């Protein structure tokens, strides 16, 4: 399946000229999948997921600008930067449900305000953002995002089939019983949190590399969180394929109608969310499962 996904995005640029659309679609697949790792497998819904995307973008760019790091290495650095932010935010995991989601949202906004702060302009570019056009290399960035998307999906497969994943399932079903089964809950959820943050950070890094000139809002915009959440939910969280299908389908839809007639898009989007919540809380792929087809 990963091979199919990989080959598709390798081949598509040859038959479809809008490579930047394909790139952004991969970005959202990676983000939806990264968010799925956390939400689908532990139940923590990070409204501020974009914070890790932005942290990755800035981490990567600053490493290029101030440390003269080669772009690909800096992408890794961006992933690590996002994971470092996740370590600092680790205590958020003690909150549950909406409290976690909202606190996470707040921290992503704080991060945004910090990097966009004019006083930090010499370092972060403040409100004017960053330029790393010196390392501009769209082909390499495209392949990097492809790899990140595949890695995120490979991790989702691991969560579905491994012993570790069995433990995660137990944790989401019953916390206390999971402890009584001998599972180190705190460690397991911290691992997932870091991995999920790192995926967003890597995606943010490759995204920054690809666009190479950006304002803070471009990598910290709340819409990015919303898209990742809706895409993942639409396909179905807790599966591997759900977020891929959800992101690909809805992002394509967004491009078909969202950009030309945004007012209709908002309408359709709102409608979709309502339908989803009311009738398909487990995503469109649950339609298959209801027919007895097992979805990975």
């Amino acid at each position, binding site marked *: 399946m990963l091979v199919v996904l990989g080959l598709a995005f390798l081949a598509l640029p040859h038959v479809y000229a809008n490579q930047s659309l394909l790139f952004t679609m991969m970005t959202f697949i990676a983000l939806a999948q990264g968010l799925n790792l956390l939400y689908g497998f532990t139940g923590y819904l990070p409204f501020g997921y974009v914070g890790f995307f932005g942290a990755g973008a800035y981490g990567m760019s600053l490493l290029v600008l101030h440390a003269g790091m080669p772009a690909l290495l800096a992408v890794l650095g961006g992933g690590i930067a996002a994971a470092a932010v996740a370590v600092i935010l680790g205590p958020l995991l003690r909150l549950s449900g909406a409290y976690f989601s909202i606190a996470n949202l707040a921290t992503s906004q704080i991060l945004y305000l910090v990097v966009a702060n004019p006083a930090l302009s010499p370092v972060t570019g403040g409100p004017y953002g960053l330029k790393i056009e010196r390392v501009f290399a769209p082909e390499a960035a495209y392949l990097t995002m492809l790899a990140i998307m595949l890695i995120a999906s490979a991790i989702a497969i691991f969560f579905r089939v491994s*012993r570790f994943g*069995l*433990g995660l*399932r*137990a944790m989401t*079903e*019953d916390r*206390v*019983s*999971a*402890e*009584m*089964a*001998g*599972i*180190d*809950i*705190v460690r397991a959820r911290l691992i997932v949190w870091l991995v999920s943050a790192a995926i967003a950070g890597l995606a943010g890094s490759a995204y920054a590399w690809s666009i190479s000139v950006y304002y803070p809002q471009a990598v910290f915009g709340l819409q990015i969180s919303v898209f990742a959440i809706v895409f993942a939910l639409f396909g179905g969280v807790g599966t591997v394929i759900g977020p891929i299908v959800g992101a690909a389908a809805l992002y394509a839809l967004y491009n078909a109608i969202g950009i030309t007639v945004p007012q209709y898009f908002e309408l359709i989007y709102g409608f979709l969310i309502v339908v989803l919540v009311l009738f398909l809380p487990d995503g469109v792929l649950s339609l298959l499962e209801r027919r007895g087809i097992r979805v990975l």
Partner: protein
Amino acid sequence: MSSEALIELKGVGKRFNGLAVVQDLGFSMQAGEILGLVGPNGSGKTTAINLISGVYAVDAGEIRLQGQRIERLAAFRRVHLGINRSFQVPKPFRAMTVAENVTVAAEFGGSKVDTKQILDDVGLAADRDRPAGALTVNHQKMLDLARALATSPKLLLVDEIGAGLNPGELASVADLLLALARRGIALIVVEHLLKFLNRITDRVIVLNAGRLLFEGTLAQASAHPEVVAAFLGG
């Protein structure tokens, strides 16, 4: 004495919202021993189990397992050291099958076990592929027990497993608990059904309003005026 005890509590206390629910609780047990824990509703029996298993942290006192202090350890670490329990209101992984429930504990419990044998022992072999949520409450309690056994406990805390069972079922659960004790597992059995308790042990402690009111045999307990008063008053 303290070095040979399997489990030893000293001065254990717990408060909820300022209210003492367990106070100055102390006792000790040897391997293979069965201790009945009785007391009126709300006397702190389940809380005592939660404190020993690490579901709640103690506010005071110490708990030793084979001489090692464990009262500050996370619950999962106590599981690895050999403490496990069942729940008064059973807590299976409802969407998992019966077999998966036991497999999780076998995988993470830190010891090699025969999950098939365990399901046989608790009488759930025929239900292995059913979702745990579809079992009756009684069977879910047995599944809790199976999951606990899958971590190879040295000390097993059993919270009101008899409630709701018919006489035949009670007899077979009593036999199972006796067999576990013969294997060397120490058991603390919380139970309202004194007849059931009488089948498996003659050593009980009686809690009243969070305090240890009495320790001795069941026969002595039922002749003890304060114990009788506590049950009638509670």
